[in-house]
């Protein structure tokens, strides 16, 4: 029986790899793979190669390493973190144990004459693929953390021990909690018990510290070394070391600085792993019901995530009141704004925007009267500046209430009596509205609050003109930015579909994502440069004749016209692509 399960696992793995390789026949995925592989090579492998002791030139630095006396502290800290994770694993869950099976696995395996223990074993082996992959990736990404000593191999194996033992522990814990539940111990009682235990340990440790140790003094924080020494005494006295010992066994191989230490650490780590293994296999509780419920929920969640639908993925969706009343007739694009606003949080309303703007306006004017509040103004400006940067860079990735979340409804959208560009325009309206509102508010704060002596030329009237000029620029700029991720969804639907689907991630996905983040920046720079350059030149030349405010106003008009033309071209191109788009063909393996 177990042979059959193993066969299932291995063939699935092989077929996944094969279908991914087959997809590389499509040039766009191939390019993604090449860029991704190149990035990986440049970022990680080369760095690892560079981490080797240099053989050339006297000026070359050796790799920085942690002083050996710090290693026990690091080990204890690592163990402490692991322990905290484990404790959280005993506190947070509130459901019965449910091993996560796919719906197909449930349909085939649960009615089959398979022992429960075999299923658990299958699940464990199943998770090994993911664990090994994760361990390898972490090792690569951290450049194997040469400063800790050890090699990429010992670190990779070390990560495997940590992840695999945690995985086993959580499985065993969920079984144990299910047994508690079956014996009438509710999750809250369990939580209180665990928290009580934690509090007890903390109290005992503190009491111990009180008796044997001094409280931290300023001198302890004078240098990194003294702080580490204090931390070390803290972690190595009282009952804490005993509690930390099993966790230290687990992280031991990872922290081993050289091969002998690594080999010595393997034994205890294996012991903890083996004990966990026996614990899990012996604690048979009925997990089938919960597994079925879990897999259904997971399937719904995956579907939601694939559609970029984070609200649905994070829980139940509720019917909402629309942001505004939609008349039956009028421009059809507005219908998309109305629809997509329904899929966001209800704070994104015109009323909220107006209220916030008024609050900022009144607050800003009021605070201006008191010179003593310059600090508040500076703080608010800094915050606003951060918001502007954040929204400009990450906003289009976060506000996804556009074509990206409607991908699966493409067929229906295409039967509507609309041109492709109309659908695309309608789709981006919601994120444009959301991002523009945030930017408008942040810019309002900036214009009201920025006060520096160097900015004395920024007179109130000029501020007003700049503000009014920015009002129309912001939405066109947002629209321009949003064209990029929507183009990505149209050009790489398979990628957009699977972006959040863990089992489907891969190097070509990474490459594509890099291409598009870079693409977004390039588009913005290319689109903005001519307009901004032209505007600056115009202001510089004309301000002497027509005055600065008038020059700014005219230049802003020019920028808006320029950007709007660019948006229109982009929309038209996307529309053309949309009209030829065949989702079913794109999503074929």
């Amino acid at each position, binding site marked *: 029986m177990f042979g059959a399960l193993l066969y299932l696992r291995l063939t699935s793995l092989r077929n996944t790899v094969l279908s991914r390789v087959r997809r590389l026949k499509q040039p766009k995925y191939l390019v993604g793979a090449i860029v991704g592989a190149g990035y990986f090579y440049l970022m990680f492998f080369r760095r690892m190669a560079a981490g080797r002791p240099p053989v050339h030139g006297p000026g070359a630095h050796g790799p920085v390493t942690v002083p050996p006396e710090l290693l026990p502290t690091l080990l204890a800290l690592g163990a402490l973190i692991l322990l905290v994770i484990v404790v959280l694993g005993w506190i947070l869950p509130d459901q019965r144990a449910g091993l996560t099976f796919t719906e197909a696995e449930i349909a085939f395996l649960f009615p089959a004459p398979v022992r429960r223990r075999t299923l658990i074993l299958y699940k464990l082996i199943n998770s090994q693929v993911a664990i090994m992959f994760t361990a390898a990736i972490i090792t690569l990404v951290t450049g194997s953390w040469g400063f800790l000593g050890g090699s990429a191999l010992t670190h990779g194996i070390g990560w495997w021990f940590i992840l695999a033992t945690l995985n086993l522990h959580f499985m065993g814990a969920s079984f144990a909690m299910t047994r508690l539940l079956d014996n009438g111990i509710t999750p809250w009682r369990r939580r209180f018990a665990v928290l009580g235990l934690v509090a007890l340990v903390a109290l005992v440790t503190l009491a111990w510290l009180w008796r044997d140790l001094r409280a931290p003094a300023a001198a302890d924080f004078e240098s990194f070394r003294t702080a580490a020494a204090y931390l070390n005494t803290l972690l190595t006295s009282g009952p804490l070391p005993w509690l930390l010992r099993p966790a230290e066994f687990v992280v031991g191989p990872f922290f081993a600085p050289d091969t002998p230490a690594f080999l010595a650490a393997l034994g205890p780590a294996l012991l903890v792993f083996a004990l966990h293994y026996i614990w899990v296999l012996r604690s048979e509780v009925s997990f089938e019901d919960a597994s079925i419920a879990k897999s259904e929920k997971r399937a719904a969640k995956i579907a*939601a995530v694939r*559609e970029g*639908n984070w*609200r*649905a993925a994070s829980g*139940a*969706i*509720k*019917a*909402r009141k*629309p942001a505004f009343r*939609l*008349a*039956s*007739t*009028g421009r*059809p694009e*507005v*219908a998309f704004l*109305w*629809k997509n606003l*329904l*899929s966001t949080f209800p704070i994104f309303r015109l009323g909220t925007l107006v209220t916030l703007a008024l609050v900022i306006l009144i607050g800003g004017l009021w605070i201006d009267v008191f010179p003593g509040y310059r600090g508040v103004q500076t703080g608010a400006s800094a915050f606003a500046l951060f918001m502007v940067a954040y929204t400009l860079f990450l906003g289009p990735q976060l506000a996804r209430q556009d074509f990206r979340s*409607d991908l*699966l*409804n493409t*067929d*229906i959208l*295409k*039967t*509507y*009596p*609309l*041109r492709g560009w109309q659908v695309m325009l309608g789709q981006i309206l919601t994120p444009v509205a959301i991002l523009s509102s945030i930017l408008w508010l942040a810019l309002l704060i900036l214009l009201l609050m920025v006060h520096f002596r160097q900015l004395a030329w920024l007179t109130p009237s000029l501020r007003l003109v700049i503000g009014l000029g920015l009002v129309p620029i912001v939405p066109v700029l947002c629209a321009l930015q949003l064209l990029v991720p929507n183009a990505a969804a149209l050009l790489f639907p398979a990628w957009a579909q699977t972006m959040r689907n863990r089992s489907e991630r891969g190097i070509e996905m990474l490459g594509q994502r890099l291409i598009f983040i870079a693409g977004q920046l390039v588009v913005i720079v290319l689109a903005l440069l001519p307009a901004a350059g032209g505007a600056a030149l115009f202001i510089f030349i004309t301000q002497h004749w027509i005055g600065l405010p008038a020059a700014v106003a005219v230049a802003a008009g020019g920028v808006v016209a320029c950007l709007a033309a660019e948006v229109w071209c982009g929309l038209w191109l996307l529309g053309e692509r949309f*009209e*030829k788009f*065949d989702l079913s*063909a794109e999503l074929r393996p």
Partner: protein
Amino acid sequence: MIEVTGLIKRYGAFTAVKELSFTVRPGEVLGLVGPNGAGKTTTLRCLAGIIPATAGTIHIAGQDLTADPVAAKRSLAFFPDEPRLFDYLTVRQHLAFVARIYGVAHHEDIAQPLLEELEIADKADQLPGELSRGMKQKLAIACGLLHAPSVMFFDEPLTGLDPLGIRRMKDSILKRARAGATVVLSSHLLHLLEEVCSHVLILKKGEKIADGTLADVSARFANGEANVSLEEIFIRATGGTES
């Protein structure tokens, strides 16, 4: 009225639909039948303007689908096999959205009777996630019928419905056809097709094997026997194997 001439659809080197020509007049219900993979869905998606045809012309209610897709789409409705709905819109909000897309003035006056006819009026404020499959399908149909299309395409409309649902669906389709709509539907449930369709078109590997009224096609494959079921005819026509 649907007029199709020389419709070809290729996916890369693979030809899914080969040189298909047919005409469906108002009041007629054409049943597309054929084994799995025969090209029924592909044909319907081409006719509804979802995917561009590789070659051939399609006229929907007199409008050329390639030359003026917007005008052609104004008079058609497409119902996919899986109802596609918007997760965050209630039943009523779906109708408001679709009304604006098609510019249906005073849509409430049309929507309410439609919801009542389809028996989902009591679910008007629920989200698709709260509806059963049959209910979702009804909502999709209400959305498609709101703009009173004169041409309708149903892909496997009867699968997944319970017997009562099938009866209601058949009645709905027949009612629209009697009112002058042109209907094309695809289905595997041959005995049910017999009750709905006035014409059939048998497809195999993307090719038309036979088309005409039910009686014509039956006569052609009955070899002189009387009372041959559509199923038997289907098996004879398609050679009984999947393509």
